[in-house]
């Protein structure tokens, strides 16, 4: 299920996987991943997520993408919508990749 971070993942693929994480890890009943818009606000008026959801979402993303998110890296901007989250995940995947390369 979870490809290693080494796998080349397209941004579109990352977006799809993020949407699945949102629905599954946040137990959003009656919502399918496809129904979540790329630019739809996740918190407040959009999907109505709250601060507990934010913690769950970080857990879900870490487990899905094999990344480690430090609390100082969390900002409102990165969690505003799926597009922003995809960029956030890509930066972590690149960082993880370059750290592995440096260790070799």
């Amino acid at each position, binding site marked *: 299920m979870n490809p290693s971070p080494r796998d080349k993942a397209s941004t579109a693929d990352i977006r799809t996987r993020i949407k699945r994480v949102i629905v599954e*890890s*946040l*137990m*959003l*009943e009656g919502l399918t991943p496809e129904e979540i818009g790329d630019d739809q606000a996740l918190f407040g008026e959009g999907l109505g997520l709250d601060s*507990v*959801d934010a*913690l*769950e979402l*970080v*857990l879900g993303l*870490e*487990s899905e993408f094999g990344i*480690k998110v430090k609390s100082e890296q969390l900002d409102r901007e990165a969690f505003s919508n799926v597009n922003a989250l995809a960029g956030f995940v890509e930066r972590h995947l690149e960082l993880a990749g370059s750290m592995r390369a440096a260790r070799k």
Partner: protein
Amino acid sequence: MAANARSGPRIWVTGLGAVTPFGWGMEAFARGLYEGRTAIRPLSLFSTDGHRTRIAGEVPAGLEDALAHLPPKQRARLSRTDGFALAAAREAAASAELELSEHGRPSVGLFVGSSTGGMLEGERFFGDLRTAGNRRLAASRIASQQHSGPADAIARALGIGGPVVTFSSACSAAGMAIEAALRSLRSGETEVALAGGADSLCELTYAGFNSLRAVDEQPCRPFQTGRKGLSLGEGSGVLVLETETHARGRGARALAELAGAGSSCDAHHMTAPDPLGEGLVLAIEKALTDAGVDLEDIDVINAHGTATPLNDVAEWKALERVFGARLARIAIQPTKSNVGHLLGACGAVEAVAALLALTQGSLPPTPTVDAVDPECPANLVIGAARALSYPATVLSVNLAFGGANVALVFRSDKPESS
């Protein structure tokens, strides 16, 4: 009915709800009580390895069903205690035929006692964390870890917008909550109040009372010669209280009157009661004065009766100081012999048991194993239920760690069926 000594409206009890070791709902509780059974049995919620006891008053399966109406995300954030509290509050509101949305939200209050809140979930989370390595655990599992979780859950579910207050004065918490509801209603702050308590079993309290050697390996035996300590229990009790004017205005029936309440603190010791029982005496005298009833009016005492060797004797001495020789004629109802000690919820479940007696017109028989202890010769109801004569008045008392005492007076002119 004697007039209240204090000014302010009469406060009616118009609804009851309970989740107890006998099951989910008032019917299961009433059946267990009136069949004279104990629901204290081998514990399955967690391992009892390393403890001297293996038993507790554990609420049977039903939590999932009780929360099934909630979205999965909301469900995942609630504790076992929250589930008990929600189910009891919903049952109480339904039995009072109280449509909360029809009432001005700010005029409805909620007063809840809890000692453990979501401690069980906190323990399980911490247990998993120790073996989780670098893996993080889902935060929703401990979202309702705090003591105010049960009250918050009820307020959200039922739409209560008045004062929502949590009491955590150990074993007197629920009694204190009911007293606070009475004061709020009398003052005019609220017209309707839900009041009670909720607690689930957890490893800390189970291990703690084991360490204190305050537990009995057999189901607890309040006021009996062989008693060796308490049995822990879990559950929730909720009362719907409202001003007489408000209840009459919507055509609600009174199950009984909450006539008065009183509380006090021993200011003596962390765990031990004042050996002279002065604190409890003061709480009872305040409650009787508050209710405008005389000593002779009290027909039944729902005693704290934890069944520790020390408690029952100390409690008895305090009761003797208040009631003198008359105490021998007052029936004693020790509800802990049926369901165990529900800690922050015991005052609520015991008030519900007292109110059941007032509405049914009889006291249920107490399950007994040994003879009544001559050191605390309680007039227990043994064998068959005992009829009450009306008007009937019940005093319910609780003593807590920290020396916090509370006494409540319930009164009724007639049983519900007449």
